[in-house]
């Protein structure tokens, strides 16, 4: 069974490298470029894991996370936040809103890939 990842990120080169890394691990990758599109795609086709940037147009990552955790069908989706907002208060707020993991940009590729695989393993089959 294919595992799916939704990358919510508005920087095309970051999307390109993340897609490459995750597809290499055999994952199906979808991409959303702003907060509103992210929510639409989450609702239409819920992925196993969401890679979420915080600074996006229309809806911020914080808002997406808050809405996601309040919707029954979406609230169990694993969320890995990747953000250049690396301050402690951002990290704490994101975790309080229900993120499963927070990684600060710039990151090491293997840190992101390993975190995604760990989160996928934690999903009950």
């Amino acid at each position, binding site marked *: 069974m294919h595992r799916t990842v939704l990358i919510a990120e508005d*920087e095309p*080169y*970051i999307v*390109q*490298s*993340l897609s*490459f*890394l995750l597809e*290499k691990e055999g994952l199906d990758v979808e991409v959303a470029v702003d907060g509103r599109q992210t929510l639409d795609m989450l609702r239409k086709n819920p992925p196993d894991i969401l890679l979420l940037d915080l*600074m996006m147009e229309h809806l911020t990552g914080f808002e997406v996370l808050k809405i996601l955790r309040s919707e029954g069908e979406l609230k169990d989706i694993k969320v890995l936040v990747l953000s*250049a*907002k*690396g*301050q*402690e*208060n951002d990290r*704490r*707020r994101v975790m309080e809103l229900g993120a499963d993991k927070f990684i600060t*940009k*710039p*990151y*090491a*590729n*293997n840190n992101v890939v390993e975190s995604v695989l760990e989160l996928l393993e934690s999903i009950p089959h």
Partner: protein
Amino acid sequence: MTPLGPRLRSVRKKKGITQSDLARSIGISVSYLNLIEHNKRNIGPALVAKLTRALDIDPQHLSTPQDARLIHDLENLAAEPLFRLSRLEPKAPKEIVANHPRWAQGILKLYRSNQACSEALEAMSQRLNSDPYMVESSHQIMNIITSIRSFSEILEEVPDLPDDVRNSMTTGISAESRKLGIAAKSLFEFINEPGKSPRSSTPADQVNDFLIDRHNYFEELEDAATSLRTRIDKSGHRLSDALFDYLQEKHGTKIEFRTPQARSTPGTASQYKYDPKSRSLYLANTLPEASARFQLAQHLFELEYGDALAGILKSADLTGEVYQGALRALLNYAASAFLFPYEPFLEASEKTRYDIQLLRRAFGGSFEQICHRFTTLKRPTAPGVPFAFLRVDPAGNISKRYSLPNLPLPRGDGACPLLLAYRAFLTPGQICTQIGALPEGEKNLYIARTVSKHVGAYGEPDRMYAIMIACEGHYIDQVLYGDHLSGRGDQHLTPLGLHCRTCSRRSCQHRAHGSVLGTL
């Protein structure tokens, strides 16, 4: 401090009892009861008991401790700057509390809510004003670095990368590198160009901005001070006497030293007053010689260089309260330049490594004057150590502030209690030193002591201030006061902030207010 009178009157009227009936029943005159009802007489508990018995009401109905506090709070509210021009009637709080206590509570609630919003807004705007561009720019740079790093790792670690993917990623690195160069250049330009910094909103901050824009150095005033000093300074004469003579002879100024009036006499607090009609200059005879000399020098500059000062201010497009504040700052500057001539003062400062005590002795200035002159040693060809300056009273009111681009100082309420200016009040009159680190990591040397200013006759409290100067940590070896602090490691660093509301040190034991940073 109670609403007893109006409330008594209200109850009496509601019960249909006349003043004369009530007065007679408790054995006082009608006129006395009338004075009580208009809060013109304070009465003791025995009479209150008689009145409440006669009116058949609970004594709490006439006045409670909560009423007194409510009145006190409303009176304090009238003193707030927001109501400065409203001329609120001082007696009204008692009447409002007596007749409409819930309205009184409502007014206070509304005011406190407004105050809380203003504080939060101020704290947020301080943060946003100081770095919205920085936030955006650093975010962009972090994203670019992420792309470059990620692509580089893939190129290095994946040997069998298809050519089209490899080419695409190489192109990506190249494009992102170019973007990084532009973003970094813009950021450095922003940091290094004061003209692009966000502007401040309060008049005091705008005066500070004006001084920072001019690097707190005014060549024209330095030249004027040198010229004036050459004309006035007579060998063998004390400078104060020379100034005194010059003002009398050249400008016909009558200088009079006055004894400050007793505190019961209102409006006599001024240490300096000039009457242009009679050309009379009044100085308080309690002023120390250094302060009197400073006032004379300021006055002389105002007379001889008033147009030049106005020209400087007009060129900066200043008006209103900011103009007046900047004018005072320029007069301070000019008097300082006159009393502590640039070259000899800088030479002595460097020779003594900014020893304020030795400089006071050599130049005859006060602690505050010497510290202030340090902040103006900015001649491009011969600069001194750049110092920031803060003057604050024991209640935390800041009356003088000159910050530096890399050495910010608090603006007002809610400042960091660990800052040396506030700690200096614990050891009055002693010079204290501190190496402090701001949350962003900059280390600075802070030097402070309290000074007292006599303002009146015996029994009048002196005005007390803490004067603090500060320089960036990398100047520590040039300043005497850093000797025992440098090279002692980080355990002697005091972790400072500017204001609790904008400070990111969440676990600080000295925090007085919650931080608003988490809400951003």
